[in-house]
């Protein structure tokens, strides 16, 4: 990630469709060899952003640079920004090898070299022996790899991916995540990956861009996004977070009459976020700094169990526990517990 020599630069990029602003002034730099995930709910502008990078949409305002070159007036077919579609968009009237060769053929590369390079990529993607198969005779995972080979055969500097795993079975998603991460490391090229799935973004990306309503809500490493969400939108989108409002005075926050230390925070109204796995559940009132909470339900979440509570003013509170802890607490709906957190686990939201 060399900030001085970025591969991609978005400068105040806007995209509107009529009166609807899909992207409202985007500033983003993407480094060479970086794996960036753009994540957000549907309609947040993430796919539009990716399509503008590929040239499939023209920005209404602002500039996009790739490798220092302004791309606004460069036609789609003159760019080298291959995209992997959610539907894969493999050509059904061509066989596997012809699909992979397509980009090379369009660049006027001779038949022999085309064939050699396509075979190399088919081999690399574990598709040797499938070259003459029609596309509809392949499994979902195989098609995925054909789409990757087709995009990478021209050896581009970056690969764009638009929710490529969302149509796959869960077990295949995990496997393809491994394939993609390994591929990106081996090739050392930039991956720009659009998804609405947190687990995909956090599992693969070096940096995650969270978008909401056409704007960037936060950019950071997966852990930063998870541990230090900058605003309510990110905290809610990431989930498994408690968002609490209160009044700060003298380095402590008062929430629903309960005062907890919040060192370094300026006085005034504030919102803090505490991750569910940083919450401690007490069966008895520990005395101070714990919010009374009535148990509502529990949810098995793979890595642990999320317990849901109702706080003093009706807000939803979450705490993550292990199975053993749950058995020990033996909660029943309506039973009163107390939730507390270490001061360093609380994180102030800016907006």
């Amino acid at each position, binding site marked *: 990630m060399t900030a001085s020599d970025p591969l991609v630069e978005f400068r105040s990029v806007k995209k509107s469709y009529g009166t609807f602003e899909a992207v409202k002034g985007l500033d983003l730099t993407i480094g060479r060899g970086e794996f960036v995930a753009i994540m957000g709910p549907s309609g947040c502008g993430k796919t539009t952003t990716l399509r503008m990078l*590929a040239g*499939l949409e023209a920005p209404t305002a602002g500039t996009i640079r790739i490798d220092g070159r302004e791309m606004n007036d460069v*036609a*789609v*077919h*003159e760019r*080298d*920004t*291959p*995209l992997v*579609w959610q*539907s894969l*968009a*493999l*050509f*059904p*009237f*061509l*066989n596997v090898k*012809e699909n992979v060769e*397509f*980009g090379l*053929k*369009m*660049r006027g590369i001779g038949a022999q070299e085309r064939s050699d390079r396509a075979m190399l990529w088919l081999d690399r993607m574990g598709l040797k022996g499938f070259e*003459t198969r*029609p596309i509809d005779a392949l499994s979902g995972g195989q098609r995925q790899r054909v789409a990757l080979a*087709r*995009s990478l055969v*021209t050896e581009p500097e970056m690969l764009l991916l638009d929710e490529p795993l969302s149509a796959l079975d869960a077990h295949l998603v995990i496997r393809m995540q491994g394939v993609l991460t390994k591929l990106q490391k081996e090739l050392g090229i930039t991956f720009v990956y659009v998804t609405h799935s947190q687990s995909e973004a956090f599992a693969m990306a070096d940096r995650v861009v969270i978008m909401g309503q056409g704007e960037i809500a936060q950019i950071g490493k997966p852990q930063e996004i998870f541990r230090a969400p900058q605003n309510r939108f990110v905290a809610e989108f990431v989930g498994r977070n408690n968002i609490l409002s209160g009044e700060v005075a003298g380095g402590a926050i008062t929430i629903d009459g309960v005062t907890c230390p919040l060192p370094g925070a300026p006085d005034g109204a504030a919102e803090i976020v505490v991750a569910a796995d940083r919450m401690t559940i007490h069966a008895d009132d520990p005395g101070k700094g714990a919010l009374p909470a009535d148990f509502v339900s529990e949810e098995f979440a793979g890595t642990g169990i999320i317990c849901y509570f109702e706080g003093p003013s009706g807000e939803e509170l979450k705490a993550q526990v292990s199975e053993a802890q749950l058995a020990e607490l033996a909660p029943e709906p309506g039973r009163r517990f107390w939730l507390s957190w270490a001061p360093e686990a609380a994180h102030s939201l800016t907006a």
Partner: protein
Amino acid sequence: MAKRPSVYPYVWRLPLLIWQGLFFIGPLCLMVAMSFWLVRNYRMEPDFVFKNWDRMLSRGFFWDAYWVTFLRATLAATLASLLAFPASFALAFRTSETVRRWAIFFLIVPFFTSYLVRIYAWQVLLAGNGPLNAILGLVGLGPFTMLSTGFGAMVGYMTLVLPLVVILQTFSLAAIDRNLIEAARNLGANPRATLFQVIIPAAKVGLIIGFIFAFILTFGEFVSPFYLGGSNPPTLSILIVDTTKSGQQWPRAAVVAVIMIVTLFLAAFAAVAAAYRRRS
């Protein structure tokens, strides 16, 4: 409980089967049989002789008419496909859904009037002293002889098939997955390569169906070659009419008709095979 075969679906299929049996298979068999009959004293007599076949197939005028018909139909289908394509392309990719719907509607409107009426209208328009020559005369061109020529016949063929070919092509082009077109551009295909390497292959079935419909309709056409093409050279359909009129030679006309049907079957089979051919 064993499942009883349901009678219900067969009840609905039966009318079509009866119709096809009575009015297609039946006459077809009769026609094939008739081609082996004899005409004595201007009257047909059932028989089994190869005289009619021998007579027609050994004559130059039959083969002249056959090739004229075949080549004209091929030309008409090619011309209709080429003329229709830019319009279909524009309707499929360059217009809104609303415009496309209205265009399809207006392409159906010509079928409201009898084809014969439209051909009579062309007779007036294409006449030696007709409006078209008058307009061309204003810019110092012509007058051209357009009636009773191959050109005249071709105008009639286009009147018949062009709207249909545009409709078929438009539907097949509009049905192409837009992602495929974007993927082609994304992989470096310029507009021309996108058209020839992706759009045409992806719409192949519809384009071939449009072509073969135009071929079938013009191959058996009688009105255009007769009223606008001047019957000279005669097409197979004109030959059939002439043969039945001269000496009640229905069996010889049946020979021509059987050959036409065989040709159309082969053409249709070839077209469908080409349209659905799998690449290995």
